[in-house]
């Protein structure tokens, strides 16, 4: 369970070492898939704990975990304590109720919606329905990235926005409310929700890679300076093309 003592004999029994990973819930599923594949090839034991970016970074800093996962940028003091590796990119999609007739918006309109300047779908050519904004919580990596790219700050977010924690909750909220608009990771898109093109560009991995779709942010692994051999090898695996294939399969965006 941990890198310190308790399980020393277990970790070394056989030659399977343990890599303890913890952190972001959005990076977590991807890390689990990478680990599952890696474990079939190499005799190591990888533990992935999805407990949130900050908790993961903290764990990496104080040694509870070998590697922390983050979907947000590191703070200055964190950067001093740990090293970061970008393992993939994640696209962010603006989503609505599937019945919503509005399918295309400009980045400016997105900003106006989330800051409360546009409050009715009919202003965008849709039905006469009040817009209900659904945002992620303050501190979320998706939200940070989304706000930065769209160009508004947390203080400007419309006050009565629904705040949901996690992609899944936004998805459920938006899927059950005709009024709603929100944003989630590429990975979680399915037919229960409608997606919006931004400035006429569809949210696809290709469009992210060719820089025509702007809403994307990095997935990070962080670790202390002297990460053990097994950990280093795992990171190498992820960055290899085999690893990046898995990234793509999982619905995230490969680095190259």
């Amino acid at each position: 369970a941990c890198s310190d003592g308790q399980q020393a004999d277990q970790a070394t029994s056989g030659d399977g070492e343990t890599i303890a990973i913890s952190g972001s819930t959005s990076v977590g599923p991807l890390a689990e898939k990478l680990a599952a594949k890696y474990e079939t090839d190499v005799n190591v034991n990888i533990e992935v704990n999805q407990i949130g970016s900050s908790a993961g970074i903290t764990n990496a800093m104080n040694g509870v975990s070998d590697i922390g996962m983050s979907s947000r940028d590191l703070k200055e003091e964190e950067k001093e304590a740990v090293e970061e590796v970008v393992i993939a990119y994640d696209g962010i999609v603006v989503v609505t109720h599937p019945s919503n007739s509005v399918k295309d918006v400009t980045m400016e309109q997105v900003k106006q919606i989330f800051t409360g300047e546009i409050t009715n779908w009919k202003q965008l050519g849709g039905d006469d329905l009040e817009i209900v904004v659904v945002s992620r919580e303050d501190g979320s990596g998706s939200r940070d990235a989304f706000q930065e790219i769209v160009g508004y700050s947390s203080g400007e977010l419309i006050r009565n926005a629904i705040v949901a924690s996690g992609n899944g909750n936004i998805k459920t909220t938006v899927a059950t409310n005709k009024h709603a608009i929100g944003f989630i990771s590429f990975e979680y898109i399915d037919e229960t929700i409608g997606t919006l093109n931004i400035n006429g560009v569809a949210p696809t991995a290709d469009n992210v890679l060719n820089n025509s779709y702007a809403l994307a942010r990095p997935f990070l692994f962080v670790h202390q300076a002297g990460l053990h051999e097994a950990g280093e090898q795992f990171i190498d695996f992820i960055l290899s093309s085999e690893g990046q294939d898995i990234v793509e399969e999982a619905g995230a965006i490969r680095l190259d």
Partner: protein
Amino acid sequence: MDTTHTDMTKANKRKYALEKFSSKLFLVCALLSVFSLVLIVGFVFYKGATPFVSGEYSFINFLFASDWVPSEDKFGIWPMIVASLYATIGALVIGVPVGLFTAIFLAEIAPKSVAKILSPAIQLLAGIPSVLYGVFGLAIIVPFLQNNLGLARGQSLIAVIIVLAIMMLPTIVTVSETAIRAVPKAYREGSLALGASQIGTIFKVIVPAAKSGILAAVVLGLGRAIGETMAVILVAGNALIVPTSLTDSVRPLTTNIALEMGYAAGTHQEMLFATGIVLFSFILILNFVLSKLSKGGQ
């Protein structure tokens, strides 16, 4: 018999030693919860008091300001205090009577065979994870409110109150039912023999006699309601406004902590712990009022 010696018999000596030891042991067990509380409170205060001790932020401001924008260093939790207050009172107002009446029904009115099935069924409700209550709220209650009250968003104070009231039920029903069942039969007989109706007997003799247990039920149910996060996050909407109606989205203190803790760092994290301090005070005051209430009636 052996009256020559004033000494204790050997066997009794052992018994007293055991007695002494066990009473010490029991005390230690009892103090453990105090110990835990002190540890946890200490932990929360240690984490949460820093921004105020350092003088960077004003605690009064923290309490009464209405802006909560951590990324811009604005920490005001007034809307959440109001939301917690309303949500708790609302849940109590619905959950306590329904729970208590259900308990009475099961203990006094329902045929034994029916109660035998229903009581465990209600206890089962206690084990359903709060996340699923939240999902239930989000998938059933929220759309229901949206559709029937013509709201743009069903995530609201009323949704929180309903979900919390439901979550309190198993605790209140189970603990009160046990208390009511433990009321001596002689009271029931005495009252019925005086020509009191079954209902009269229940409300005038049995419920008052079970008062202490019922209060425990309320305290435990309340604890469940105040401490609940996962279900509330899903149905509250978590908007940062001071609620003025039951249909407003709200963010109670607990959800604020649970919502942002996973990603918070630095001052933001400390402020979430400070929210915990406020929540604590809230719990302490509530428990204080309840214990006064229970003493007052005795």
